[in-house]
């Protein structure tokens, strides 16, 4: 089937930052994203697991945005401004999408 080149950006970030991140990427002109729950993880700031926390302060989640290649840079700039001081990871992959008119 006919597919179109796009970029898949996966941002792992603290739950408390969710609305700030999505607002920032919306301001960068990105309208579509999907938020995935995260069970736990490990990084420079140590390990954590969802079951072992009572405080809303600790959870993380993933925001996945699929964008046209030309929107990648504004998206990364917007995401970086939010993630910068916070823990978290930004990862970009090449991908192909169906129905390009949606992105």
């Amino acid at each position, binding site marked *: 089937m006919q597919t179109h080149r796009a970029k898949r950006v996966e941002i792992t970030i603290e739950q408390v930052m969710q609305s*700030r991140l999505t607002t920032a990427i919306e301001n960068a002109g990105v309208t579509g994203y999907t938020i995935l729950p995260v069970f736990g993880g490990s990084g420079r700031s*140590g390990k954590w697991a*969802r079951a072992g926390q*009572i*405080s809303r*302060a600790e959870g993380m989640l993933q925001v996945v945005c699929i964008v046209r290649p030309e929107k990648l840079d504004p998206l990364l700039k917007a995401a970086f401004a939010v993630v910068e001081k916070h823990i978290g990871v930004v990862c970009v992959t090449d991908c192909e999408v169906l129905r390009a008119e949606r992105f």
Partner: protein
Amino acid sequence: MADIFALAAQNLISPVVLSFALGLFAALVRSDLSVPEAVAKALSIYLLFAIGFKGGVSVADHGIDAGLGLSLLAGVIMSALIPFIAFGLLRVLSSIDRLNAAAVAGHYGSISIVTFVAATSVLESQGIAAEGYMVAVAAAMEAPAILSALWLVSRGSNGHRMDSTLWREILLNGSIVLLVGSFIIGFATGPEGMEDISGFIVAPFTGVLCLFLLDMGLVAGRGMQKGHHVLGMGAILFGVLMPVTGSIIGFGCALLLGLSTGGTLLLMTLSASASYIAVPAAMRVALPEANPSIYLTLSLGVTFPFNLVAGIPLYLALAQAANGG
């Protein structure tokens, strides 16, 4: 003195405290026992709803008096001032840096609602009454401390750490809305409303609290394992001295306000306890550079168990002595 020990012992072998101990044990031996996040949230919604509602019904029952307004004011002031004391004490006792010390200080100005609930359950089992509006005081004490903490950080620098979004998040955070909301519902529906739902919020209350504290034990235990190496002896000492200091401030306010024995215990407990929900979340947003292991371990791993096991009986003894109880 013998009484304090008897009370402490009685407190210690209650299902509530032992459930916490069980959770702590399970975490420390790294059992895979865990309470799903959704369930922990449900338990906390239940506790907030029940405690707010009961407070409201009790106010409806006894009528509002000037005590309510004055107590709210006292709570707000304590919440705003205690962080300065905490900050000073922590800087003296430990080598924790300015930023992290401020973050910790914010936690101690604010309150822990479970500690409050545990204190009310001790009062209930002893048959001691308290002012129903202490629930509203608890809600009022959640937020001011956060401002003091941020002020402590930005003093001298150009820090604009509060934006209006964070303001809204703090003042309208779920716990506050639910606590105040159910307080108002309880007040509006009164004893009749209580009759409708007491089979839900009274009869199973202590049992639900046990399961919640089981989970708190698990969380505190995991926090201790993860965080113990970030805390020196000084910081741990702070985690014990600070609640006692806070409780004494609360005790003074309660005397000034002329609260009952029960109300005195609750105000002491509020000022002695440290936040582990609202403040950490705000700190992650406003002070991301501060290390959550430090403030969560102190609040959940040191001060919470101390208050639950030793603090509450101690504060109660003091409150009873002062009120000739």
